[in-house]
């Protein structure tokens, strides 16, 4: 057989049916469900008299619009509360397990999958959410779908998909001190653009990727969609197995060894061809900050807000000009002189335990600037608990951060956690679109370390200087 890439192998292994002039029918190993994109799918199922084919391969939680404060009080927003109640009713009716609001395991859907060991190498995973690409960090083929497709998967445990193209993104060298997975993915998106990977599955490769922890790989894969990719993946290796071992749904005993043996066969074969290949020098990557309203509009911390006149095309120039107006920034302003009002440490990109540990190291013994209000929203109830066991909550609270309950929170502000018009936020999330964190709000995407450092200083700073001083 000719050499195959990781994603091609998984594709082949999940083919239920393939026919000329038709998309392939792929089996779905795990379907994750949350409150925002499922109600209409369940309703249509009901109307058509259809059942959920495999409730045992379906998992749900509430994350997008639950409050991160005072959950025991009545929800201040009746619409949010209706959506949460609807999911609860649907899960009950169709027999789907749910990590509900007070379950200690509740959390952002892309955090709980890996945490529970239901994200495993070689699987196909879908969810009505574009950041499903996160699960690709384990060597799974994981992608976001819309509500009509959610309904299709609920009814048939399969999905119709046309075969994507493949893209290799190789990051060579070693990352400098203070440079993180977030900076790697921001640099990649800045290079290939927000539509650079349309129609492709990205496989991240190279020494920098291999050296990343699972948390770091999840951060990278998470933002694949921000480059337009169908999915992002990293081949499984010892780091993957180490992370998975002992998780609730990971195979146990002899089954573990059998599973690992199968997983070792997944990585891309030597000589396999990708449709597109990109190489980045990881050693040259600096901490990045976005200045505009797309995730591709980012620059190294040492530089300045770019001049739209230097844009590569007329349309890029126009987009940049519009972004500067929205962001209220002037070309040529050094990034380190941009003052911020808010800091959001959270989201499925950067709210896992390692992210909180890294940020807490920067914060330890310091105080949040008087002009800044800052909050930490752990990615899941279990991340929160672990952080508390390690005393990280105290570090944040002592510094003046708010310490919240798990959820999506201000990543998209469907709950009460939003930016006010004109407020400027250093955020560890993944989207800086206009109004994403609140109408009129201005978002700068950064790593947890950079967000923490900005919280203390009141403006962006080069975190490498702090880390370098043995902070």
């Amino acid at each position, binding site marked *: 057989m000719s050499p195959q890439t990781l994603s091609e192998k998984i594709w082949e292994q999940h083919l239920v049916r393939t026919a000329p*002039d*038709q998309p392939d*029918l792929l*089996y779905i*190993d795990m379907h994750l469900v949350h409150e*925002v*994109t499922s109600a*209409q799918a369940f*309703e*249509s199922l009901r109307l058509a008299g259809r059942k959920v*084919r495999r*409730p*045992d*391969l379906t*998992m749900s939680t509430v994350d*997008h*619009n639950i409050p991160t404060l005072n959950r025991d009080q009545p929800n201040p927003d009746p*619409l949010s509360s*209706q*959506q949460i109640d*609807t999911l609860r009713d649907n899960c009950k009716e169709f027999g*789907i*397990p749910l990590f509900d609001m007070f379950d200690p395991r509740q959390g952002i859907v892309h955090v709980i999958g890996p945490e529970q060991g239901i994200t495993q190498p070689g699987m196909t995973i879908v969810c009505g*959410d*574009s950041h499903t690409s996160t699960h690709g960090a384990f060597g799974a083929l994981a992608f976001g*779908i*819309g*509500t*009509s*497709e959610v309904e*299709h998967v609920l*009814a*048939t*445990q*399969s999905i*119709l998909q*046309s075969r994507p193209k493949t893209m290799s993104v190789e990051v060579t060298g070693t990352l400098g001190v203070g440079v993180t997975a977030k900076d790697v993915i921001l640099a990649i998106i800045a290079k290939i653009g*927000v*539509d650079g990977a*349309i129609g492709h599955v990205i496989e991240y490769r190279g020494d920098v990727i291999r050296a990343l922890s699972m948390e770091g790989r999840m951060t990278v894969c998470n933002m694949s*969609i921000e480059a*337009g990719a169908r999915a992002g993946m990293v081949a499984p290796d010892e780091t993957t197995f180490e992370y998975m071992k002992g998780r*609730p*749904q*990971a*195979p146990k005993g002899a089954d573990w060894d*059998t*599973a690992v043996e*199968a997983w070792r066969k997944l990585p891309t074969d030597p000589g396999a061809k990708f449709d597109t290949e990109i190489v980045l020098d990881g050693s040259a990557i600096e901490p990045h900050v976005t200045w505009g309203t*797309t995730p591709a509009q980012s620059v190294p911390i040492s530089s300045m807000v770019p001049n739209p006149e230097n844009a590569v095309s007329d349309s*890029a120039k126009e*987009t940049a000009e519009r972004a500067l107006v929205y962001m209220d920034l002037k070309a040529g302003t050094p990034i380190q002189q941009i003052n911020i009002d808010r800091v959001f440490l959270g989201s499925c990109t950067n709210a896992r335990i390692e992210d909180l540990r890294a940020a807490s190291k920067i914060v330890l013994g310091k105080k949040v600037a008087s002009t800044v209000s800052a909050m930490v929203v752990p990615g899941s109830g279990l991340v929160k608990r672990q952080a508390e066991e390690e005393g990280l909550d105290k570090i944040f609270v002592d510094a003046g951060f708010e310490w919240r309950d798990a959820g999506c929170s201000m990543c*998209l502000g*469907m709950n009460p956690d939003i930016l006010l018009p004109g407020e400027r936020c250093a955020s560890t999330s993944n*989207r800086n*679109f*206009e*109004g*994403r964190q609140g*109408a009129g709000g201005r978002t700068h995407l950064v790593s947890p370390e950079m967000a923490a450092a900005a919280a203390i200083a009141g403006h962006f700073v080069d975190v490498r200087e702090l880390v370098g001083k043995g902070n």
Partner: protein
Amino acid sequence: MQAVTEVIGNAIPLNRADVDTDQIMPKQFLKRIERSGFGPYTFFDWKKDPDFVTNNPAYAGAPILIAQQNFGCGSSREHAPWGLEDMGIRAIIAPSYADIFRNNCAKIGLLTIQLPQEDVNFLMGRAEELPGGKLSVDLASQTVSVLGTEWQRHFEIDAFTKNCLLNGLDDIGLTMQYDDEIETYEGKRSQLLPSTAAF
């Protein structure tokens, strides 16, 4: 899904690149549990600007939207196509689309037509100058034409999607015909894979 064969009418020129689904349907409207009624919320924040193109009465009720590259990027929310459909859009013409958005449109019978940049620019300019100028999109022959002129272009669409759209087919019903094959697959599937039954 409703069948789509032909769309005839004027076009709204939305001359912006990388329009994300947060702009098409802001998150405060994602809390509804219905599928219809999203039209009034489409481009909610942009519409606050009186000069925004959809506020121009000349484009009221236009069934075609012309957009720039990477239209529909960002979130997978189908609420964005639902909103466009609810405001009366039946076909979109752009140089490129985000993958999930394009899939979502196909599932609800909203045509997404991809044309080369220069053709989109031409149609964009024309729609800006002649707000009432009519286009015709014909799915069977896969053509876009400017009515009253010779201008016509062919567009690509995969055979499966075309057939589903032309006949208004429900793809869940289609897949259910392959139930045996799904069952056979399930029989061979590894027993080691995770299950959520224990939760």
